């Protein structure tokens, strides 16, 4: 039986960054996030896994339009991207892996149910679509895959979920951009 959901939406094209830090080597996560905030760069997706003693991992996405600035900021923090980890045997921290042309597929609502979450990821994996990362919010499931595969992912998920008849377009037709307040004299 298909799972009824409220909708699916696509993000704009994103840069996906994984930073693995251990034993206090490499810049702290707050230094990276502070540099991005100072440069007024929005982070629409972020996870931190810090529950492994001296080892911690940061994953975040930024808009593709901010990619050049983000890579410059990371270099200024002495972080140089490594080759895709799939080429090697693992991750030797501190390590930085940058993936271009990623997109977020957002399904909502998840209703805190394991079924939508588990079956969606399993279906994408079975279709050969690499899931780079995912995270739940209060009501939605955000899945990061290759940007070009977003339409293919929807085709795969059509076998799993029921969408409302008058579903809005998957791709947003507007964006919101935050400006800094002007300083008062």
């Amino acid at each position, binding site marked *: 039986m298909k799972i009824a959901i409220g909708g699916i939406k696509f993000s704009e094209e994103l840069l996906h960054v*994984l930073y*693995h830090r251990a034993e206090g080597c490499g810049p702290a996560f707050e230094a990276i996030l502070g540099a991005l905030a100072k440069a007024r760069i929005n982070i629409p997706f972020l996870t931190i896994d810090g529950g492994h003693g001296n080892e911690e*991992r940061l994953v*975040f996405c930024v808009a593709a339009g901010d990619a050049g600035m983000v890579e410059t900021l990371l270099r200024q923090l002495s972080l140089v991207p490594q080759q895709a980890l799939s080429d090697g045997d*693992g991750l030797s921290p501190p390590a930085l892996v940058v993936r271009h042309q990623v997109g977020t597929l957002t399904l909502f609502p998840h209703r805190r149910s*394991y079924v939508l979450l*588990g079956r969606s*990821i399993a279906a994408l994996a079975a279709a050969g679509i690499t899931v780079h*990362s995912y995270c739940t919010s209060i009501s939605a499931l955000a899945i990061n895959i290759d940007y070009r595969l977003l339409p293919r992912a929807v085709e795969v998920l059509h076998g799993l979920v029921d969408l409302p008849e008058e579903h809005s377009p998957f791709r947003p037709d507007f964006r919101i951009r935050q400006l800094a307040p002007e300083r008062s004299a």
Partner: protein
Amino acid sequence: METIAVYWEAQIRIYGLTERRGLSLWTVDFPHKEIGSCAEMLAELDADGSFDLVFSHDAGTTGRLALVPGGEDVSRPRDALLWQRFETIPGAVVTRRYPVALLYLHGPHFQDRYGIAEAALAPLRRHDIPILAMGCAGTSVHLVVADLMVERVRAALAETFVL
């Protein structure tokens, strides 16, 4: 079409901060090729409960899953079931931390605004509060900390957010 927003806030306003205590944080390291079987295992949990936070990432040859089951799921039989299920994933290394607290705050257009993640992380780091896990997607920020840290987390977050 583009909408431009300017926020005139000395501190960031939020819709609310919710906390849940006495939870478990599960972490599963698995060969990334097993992401499908790991997800299938999650789907099979549905009859037995719900989640408060789940995230995962691909680190090349390995993947990592972090899971905070719903508060109603903290029990010895439930934990035994989770251990049993996770151990069916070939090559999985499972850890569980208990008790932890989950705090989540959500605010207007958090997904479209710069500086939100730093505003949540930096005060906790300044006060040497270890962050076990953090997830930001959509309009919400989830923080997982040791249960005994909750009051300190609230005090630290009050430096940057209007709680």
